[in-house]
């Protein structure tokens, strides 16, 4: 490792700052909304709520506890986890494709999930099954793309991206067809709102599945970080160093798809987090993959959490779509990356 004592302190400091930003953002997100709650009060409710099972002596408003524990807290936690999942998913895909511009959307996972949800809404599937449909659609899309990208001895990265982009286009057209052909306006509205991305109305039950997949995915990625570095030398050199390249690629792809699928199921189509977070992490922390992965997760978490906060507070009486907000930031960032990235890397 290259880090001398000085830069190691530096890394710890930066990671601590990121974690601090996460905590500060978390408190802000929990406290701000239609009803604003003082941070001290919120903390009392949250700590007391968990300790005393909901009886809060210090809080006068009985509804306050419900707002915090049933709405704000799960929503903020979901936003945080979705951000971390999409970000690390993007990190893996960038490592797999050796391309800093890759993101979960390039695998077609998100659009596959989107199509599944559109179909589910159209045929009137119960809302409770929406995450399951999104997950199944995403997985199906990833398998299809991976199948197309298959070649002797592993996955062709170029084919993976091309197939993903093509599949995204097909799914996009099918979604548009469904929206324009669906007879009833509420159904079309439902699809459009899901596609725009958002965490409104999600609760604790959504969080359980999501956090399990995300935690598992991040831990797996940390364990695979050394192999990610070996893979950066190219398939041939990695194999010559004893790596079963095709198995590693499948493992990484599966990890990325699980995290991305779980995130899409919980929040709809939230774009660009998987692109922005890993690139910011690489700008802040050089060379150590483990630090980068943790930083990527933290940055993604802060990013989606703050965007969700903006989505529910900036709109005049109505929520703004989270995905749309993030694309407003992410699109220009993507263009900036293209303009600064050297030709050979793209």
């Amino acid at each position: 490792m290259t880090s001398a004592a000085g830069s190691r302190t530096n890394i710890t400091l930066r990671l601590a700052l990121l974690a601090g930003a996460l905590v500060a953002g978390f408190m802000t997100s929990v406290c701000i909304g239609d009803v604003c709650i003082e941070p001290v009060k919120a903390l009392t409710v949250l700590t007391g709520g968990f300790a005393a099972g909901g009886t809060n002596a210090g809080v006068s408003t009985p509804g306050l506890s419900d707002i915090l524990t049933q709405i704000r807290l799960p929503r903020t936690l979901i936003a945080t986890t979705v951000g971390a999942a999409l970000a690390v998913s993007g990190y893996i895909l960038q490592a797999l494709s050796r391309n800093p511009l890759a993101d979960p959307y390039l695998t077609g996972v998100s659009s596959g999930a989107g199509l599944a949800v559109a179909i589910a809404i159209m045929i009137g599937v119960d809302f409770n099954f929406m995450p399951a449909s999104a997950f199944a659609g995403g997985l199906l899309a990833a398998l299809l793309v991976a199948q197309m990208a298959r070649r002797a001895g592993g996955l062709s990265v170029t084919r993976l991206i091309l197939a993903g982009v093509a599949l995204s286009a097909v799914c996009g057209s099918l979604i548009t067809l469904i929206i324009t052909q669906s007879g009833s306006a509420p159904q079309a509205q439902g699809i459009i709102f899901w596609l725009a991305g958002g965490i409104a109305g999600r609760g604790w039950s959504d969080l359980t599945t999501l956090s399990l997949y995300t935690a598992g995915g991040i831990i797996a990625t940390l364990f695979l970080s050394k192999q990610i570095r070996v893979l950066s030398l190219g398939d041939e050199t990695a194999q010559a160093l004893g790596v079963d390249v095709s198995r590693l690629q499948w493992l990484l792809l599966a990890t990325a798809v699980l995290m991305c699928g779980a995130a899409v199921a919980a929040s709809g189509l939230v774009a660009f987090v998987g692109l922005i977070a890993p690139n910011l992490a690489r700008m802040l922390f050089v060379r150590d993959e483990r630090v980068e992965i943790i930083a990527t997760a933290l940055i993604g978490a802060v990013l989606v959490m703050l965007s969700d906060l903006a989505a529910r507070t900036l709109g005049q009486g109505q929520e703004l779509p989270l995905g749309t907000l993030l694309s407003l930031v992410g699109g220009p960032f993507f263009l900036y990356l293209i303009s600064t990235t050297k030709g050979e890397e793209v």
Partner: protein
Amino acid sequence: MAGTIALQLDALSAGFGSKAVVEGVSLAVPKGTVLGIAGANGAGKSTLLKTIARLLPPVKGKVLIDGSDLAAMPLPHLARKVAYVAQDISSSRDLTVEDMVALGRNPHQRWWQWRSETRDKAAIEQAIKATDLQELRQKSIAEVSGGERQRATIAMSLAQEPEILLLDEPTAHLDFKHQKSLLQLLLRLKSEGMTVVTCLHDLNFIAQVCDQVLCVKKSGRAPSVQLFAGSPADVLTAENLKAAFDTELRIIRDSSDPQISSVFFGL
């Protein structure tokens, strides 16, 4: 020199899928010797070398290492025995020269392991020293020159502590000083018992370092075949070279030492 056979090519056809680029190569490489693979552009030298490294499956025939079939070996086990140095490698990550050399320890470590044990550290240090990279160890491999990166790649393969070292055109990016130190390094490794197989364009380099030369030759659209194989002193003759490269080359031999000859264009 005539010791145990480290590497054996058994009626080997190398290529892509079912399409052979080189066919019918049979050769035994004794432990502690250097084999040079020569031939014109497109004759399939690199394809042959990649098949020996198991980066390509053989189209036909077998590669045997210490008598056992290469195809049946687990990859990490193989990587502890055989190291392969590609012509030009880069990383999509920002690695230092030292980071890259340390990756040579991968087959000796557990797959999630980052920490270098004492043994790893010693191998890394030795590899860096052998390739004269002490000054460059903290430099990014994206910033060093092609020759320096090539030395770092060789250092990475030395850190693997292999029994057989495969080198694809190792002199390609090296200046005279570093060509000479590579020559000295190969001779030293050989004296320590390392078996080396290298693709080389430079016939003079072959003449000085190789115990055996294998020459492959392509004719028309058919796959290349083994044109000749033997010690440089025996097979590097004007007739053989004309057959191999379709051009006249002159050979100068030192009368006092039949091993050392020099090949030049003789215009």
